[in-house]
């Protein structure tokens, strides 16, 4: 079957029109990320900056307080991502295996709705819910569970993790569900026929086959939590900084080269994760359904 593309005639014109979205991505995101990397070696001069080849910005980043911020960001993003997977996986698994076909989409939809509401606004809402005089503390006191308001609900690690998980976890259900629902049922049945119980079947068949979706979800959650600005500022309280806050404070004193250096570190880390994911898994495993006829 010959394929006649939409924009016919001049092949060059067609290539240019079809290439437009890629040009947009290259010019507006890949280019700027490369530029940011270049600027990270520049020097700050007063209110502006000048081209240079200095490692000062990285030295400033990898020393003192900012190193602590980097290490904390790595740890918080890593541990929050593990928690998100632990919550999202069973949900995706239940949706895939225990739900009638007609109910799958509506239930997935339930997880999409809160994700689509502005997450900064949702984070503001959490700070209300968790505050000393907020509804959760009032309820706890009314039921006699505690006498005084709990202090650790807000401006704490607990609040930050809660904020991060509710911000990014809902979206992670989707890639995991995609890869779980793509698993050939016959493989599971084959494992049964070969005499394996449900746990071994899960561990040796289902889990490995769903890994592409799990890792995609994990990267999404990790990247989000790692560069977080709003959740740490609103729910962590003063002094609670994640990498995004470090970038923001560098921006606020117009130290663009330093902001560029911190930003580049997080971008490079993200790139390494994506490349590793790409090396290990075939995208088609997960997106096969969407791309089947494309």
């Amino acid at each position, binding site marked *: *079957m010959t*394929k*006649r*593309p*939409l924009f016919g005639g001049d092949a060059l014109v067609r290539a240019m029109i*079809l290439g437009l*979205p*890629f040009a947009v*991505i290259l010019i*507006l*995101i*890949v280019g*700027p*990320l490369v*530029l940011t990397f270049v600027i990270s070696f520049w020097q700050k001069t007063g209110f502006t900056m000048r081209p240079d080849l200095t490692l000062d910005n990285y030295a400033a980043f990898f020393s003192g307080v900012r190193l602590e911020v980097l290490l904390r960001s790595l740890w918080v993003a890593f541990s929050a991502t593990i928690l998100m997977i632990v*919550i999202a996986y*069973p949900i995706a698994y*239940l949706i895939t295996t*225990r739900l009638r076909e007609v109910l799958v*989409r509506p239930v997935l939809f*339930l997880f999409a709705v*809160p994700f689509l*509401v*502005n*997450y*900064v*606004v*949702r*984070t*503001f*809402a*959490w700070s*209300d*819910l968790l505050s000393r005089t907020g509804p959760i503390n009032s309820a706890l006191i009314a039921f006699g569970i505690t006498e005084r308001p709990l202090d650790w609900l807000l401006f704490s690690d607990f609040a930050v993790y809660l904020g991060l998980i*509710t911000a990014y976890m809902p979206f992670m259900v989707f890639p995991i569900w995609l890869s779980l629902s793509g698993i050939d049922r016959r493989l599971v049945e084959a494992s049964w026929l070969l005499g394996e119980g449900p746990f071994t079947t899960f561990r040796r068949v289902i889990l490995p086959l769903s890994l592409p979706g799990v890792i995609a979800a994990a990267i*999404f959650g990790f*990247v*989000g939590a790692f*560069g977080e*600005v*709003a959740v740490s*500022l609103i729910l962590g309280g003063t002094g609670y900084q994640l990498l*995004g806050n470090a*970038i923001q404070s560098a*921006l606020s004193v117009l130290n*663009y080269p330093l902001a*560029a250096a911190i*930003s580049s570190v997080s*971008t490079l880390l*993200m790139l390494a994760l*994506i490349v590793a994911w790409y090396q290990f898994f075939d*995208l*088609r495993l997960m*997106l096969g*359904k*969407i*791309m*089947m*006829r*494309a």
Partner: protein
Amino acid sequence: MTSRFTRYGIKIAWAFVALVLVFLYAPLLPPAINSFANLGDRGLFTHYSAILTDWRLMAAVRLTLLVGLLVAVIAPLLALLAAEAVRVWRIPKLILGVILIPLFVPGISMGVATALFFQILGISPSLLTITSVQVIWALPFAFLIVLTALANFDPVHREAAYMSGANRWQAFLEVELPQIHQGLLGAAVFSLILSFNETIRTAVVQGGNNTVQTYLWSQYQQIGLSPNLYALMTILIVATLALIALLALLDARRR
């Protein structure tokens, strides 16, 4: 077949899902409640009508709507071209990899990168910079939606149109578009929702302008939140929920 043990296990698992949903939906309520606080003897919608007389807020509302509209038009069109390229160029992995990049760049890094880029080029913060960064953010999502819609379209129909003497544009407009237009519309609504969702990237590239979202963000950092701002948040939440309902409706009609 299933033992009583697993049946209880599954019930507990669904209870867990319900609990997670409670946590996810709980934050949608407080802004609405706070927007009706401290009313005194003034009307119920005092804080809402106060928005109308605050010119800074109204400017932010207008900018939010304008940017949202632009994003909702541009992102699906770019997504359609990219989805078309998947079909024509036969390098789906590469195309997907490129278009999905913005999904995996931390929000603030994306903001910093584009802000520096525009600064070096001498393009001052404006509608252009805000719209660009939001289009880039919405594109991967719009692309996946359009790609799904295209996957349900059998190219044989287009071949049939060619054989009946249609040229490429006629085949697209009269045969393909009617079959995929709801997917495109879905991508547009989704892009608008994502535009309403965006704060951090926009805040870095906006300069002196403000959208509703970035106005809330800067007010929180400078002086804290007031009932008027809670009213604004409530409007934002309700508008988003209405758009989601529209999306669901489109989806139900497509099936």
